[in-house]
C-alpha cells in the first residue's frame, strides 16, 4: 500500500513557523534492511509524515568495502541549526563522527565498551591457551 498522498522524499518545503523543528532519521529501506533519510521536520510529526526538507542519508549497513555511507547537506544543516532545529541524539552522534559537531559522549562510551570487551576476550583466549599448555605439560 503506498503512503497516501505520496510526498517528494526531498521534502515538501512546508514549514510550521511556530513548531519546534528537529533533525532526525526517517527509516526507509525494508524489513531487515534499514536505510535512513536525515530530515528536518516538526517535532510533533510522525516519522513517515512529509518532511520539511531532506538533509542527507545514512546507510547503517556496511558495504563491500566495509564502509557505512552517510551524506550530509552541511549548508542546509547549518541553516536549520541557525533556525533553532534540534538534532536527535543519533544524528548528533553521526555529525560528531563527521567532524561537524564535537564527538558525542555516547560515541566515547561505545568505544571504551568495545575496547574492554576486546581486551576481555583476548585475556580469556590467552588464559585458555596457557591452560591448554599446562595440561599438555602435566600429561
Amino acid at each position: 500500500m503506498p503512503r497516501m498522498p505520496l510526498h517528494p522524499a526531498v521534502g515538501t518545503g512546508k514549514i510550521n513557523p511556530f513548531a519546534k523543528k528537529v533533525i532526525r532519521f526517517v527509516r526507509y529501506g525494508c524489513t531487515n534492511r534499514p536505510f535512513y533519510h536525515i530530515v528536518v521536520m516538526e517535532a510533533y510529526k510522525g516519522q513517515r509524515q512529509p518532511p520539511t526538507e531532506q538533509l542527507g542519508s545514512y546507510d547503517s549497513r556496511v558495504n563491500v568495502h566495509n564502509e557505512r555511507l552517510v551524506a550530509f547537506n552541511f549548508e542546509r544543516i547549518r541553516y536549520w541549526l541557525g533556525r533553532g532545529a534540534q538534532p536527535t541524539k543519533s544524528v548528533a552522534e553521526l555529525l560528531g563522527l563527521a567532524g561537524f559537531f564535537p564527538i558525542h559522549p555516547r560515541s566515547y562510551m561505545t568505544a571504551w565498551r568495545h575496547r574492554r570487551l576486546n581486551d576481555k576476550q583476548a585475556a580469556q583466549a590467552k588464559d585458555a591457551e596457557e591452560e591448554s599448555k599446562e595440561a599438555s605439560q602435566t600429561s
Partner: protein
Amino acid sequence: MFSKKFNLIILTPNKYEMKAIVRYEQFILCENMLRVTKLIGSSTLITGNLVSCECAATNSLYSQIIRWKRKPIWLPTAKSKMFRVPVKPVIPKEDNDELQRLSNIYRTYMRSLRKYMIMIGKKNEIQFDHSVVEAAEAADFEKCSAINNEWNEEIADIRKYRLHKERTQRDVGNWWRMKNYKEMLAENQEKVEEEVRSVKKQAESFITAENIDQAIEEALTIVIDHNAAIDHDGNFYKGEYSDTKIDIKQERQLKQ
C-alpha cells in the same frame, strides 16, 4: 482429498513465544497451495496476523511458523510477566563520572555552537534580506550593463568599418557586372540586327499578293527540267536527254 480437521504445531519466534496446537477447520485449495483463512479455537492475536500466502500442507506433521501480533495496549500484563522485575543496567562509578564529565563538556560545546549558528543565521537574515539582495542585484546589473554598453560601442565601430568596406566592394562589383551586362546586350542587339538584315535581303524575292499572278505565269511558262543522270564514272548528264513522259494508263494496261 485431504482431511478437514488436523492438528498443527505452531512455533512463534518473538517474545510471545509459545507452542500452540491449533485446529484448522477451513482451507481453500488454490494452485497446489493451501491458504489459511480461519483458525478455530485461537485468539484474535493469531488470526489478524496470518500471512495469506503462507502454505499449509495437507501433511499433519508439517509445522509452520506463524508470527504473533503484538499485544494490544488495552490487554493487561501477561500473567507470566506480572512479577517480572526488569534488570537495570549497572554502570560503574568511574564510567558514570567520566560520562558526566564528557556530557558537561559536550553540552557546553553544543550550546556555544548552537548560539553561534543562530547568530550566523540572524546575520544572514540581515545580510541576505530580500531588499538588500535586490539592491545589490540592481547595482550589479548597472555595473554589468555599463560594461556591456562599452563593448557594444566598440563592436559597433568595428561593424561600421566592416559594413563600409563591404558596401564599397559590392559597388565596384556591381559596376563591373553592369558593364558586362551592357556589353552582352549590345552584342545580342548586333546579332539580331544582322539576322534582320539577312532576312530583309531574302524578302526581295518573296511572292506577295501583288506579284502572285506574275509568279504563277512565270511558273507555268518556264518549265525547269530536273531530270538528270549519272554514269559509272560519276559524270552528270543534265538537260542532255529530253523529258520522257510515261502514260500511266498505258503502263497499267500493259502490266495487266
